[in-house]
């Protein structure tokens, strides 16, 4: 089996694991971490393709994705903290009345 194939398959597996985590887990913090896992899986495929093509542009793109991911977490965590303080729980089922 080719090395790139193996790495892309691993990236798909990580993405699917993160997807399952977001769908089935009930803890909001765990769901956020599973989102990070999905992002890491996609990043792995990007890096392996960029390395295969021998392009530094791919590495630049990966760096930009890292920074955007960090910004996303910096916004998501305070929102989650506010929710947890308001509802006294991290269970997403308790946020079911958030509409509009």
């Amino acid at each position, binding site marked *: 089996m080719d090395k790139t194939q193996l790495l892309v*398959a691993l990236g798909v597996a990580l993405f699917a694991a993160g997807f399952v985590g977001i769908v089935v*887990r*009930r803890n909001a913090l765990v769901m956020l971490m599973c989102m990070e896992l999905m992002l890491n899986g996609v990043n792995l495929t990007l890096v392996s393709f960029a390395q295969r093509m021998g392009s530094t542009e791919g590495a630049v793109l*990966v760096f930009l994705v890292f920074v955007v991911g960090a910004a996303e*977490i910096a916004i998501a965590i305070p929102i989650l*903290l506010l929710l947890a303080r308001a509802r006294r729980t*991290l269970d997403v089922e308790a946020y079911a009345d958030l509409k509009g």
Partner: protein
Amino acid sequence: MIEDLLLGVFASAAALSAIAMLVARHPMRVAIALIVCMLALAGIYALLGVHVIAVFQVLIYVGAVMVFIVYVIMLVDMRDNAFASRYSWLLVPGAVVAAALVAAICDALWRGGAAPEAPGGARFGIQAFSETFLNEYWLYFELVSVLLVAAVVAAISVVKLGIGRRG
């Protein structure tokens, strides 16, 4: 030879810790599993020869993002419903859809066969990376710093909003 072996070790560590994330009950254990997964991915990047990305993976993800998440887990340690029963009612449909996704993509991957030999795997250091980054993509660098400032301002205003509502 030893590189292939290490690649297998890191890949299986990443996959196993991703599965551990799904079954662990306490959020802190999930965070530890995610950190292990990210470190394994950094090892894979280093083995591929893109050391720059491996360093950024450790510095930005493990060093900044995960430390932040671990702090938040310690801050809101709640033993609520989500702790008592880990899974929602979507457990079976979600797992089925994810398995179908993996099967479809891996089938396409195998049927496509190995990619044609590219002009050699890249092994570039920080110099080639920074020359490309700061010569051709400097505008994106500046835009990303503006984005980070915007994220910081937004985080502060979200927290202030919460304090204002309660006070």
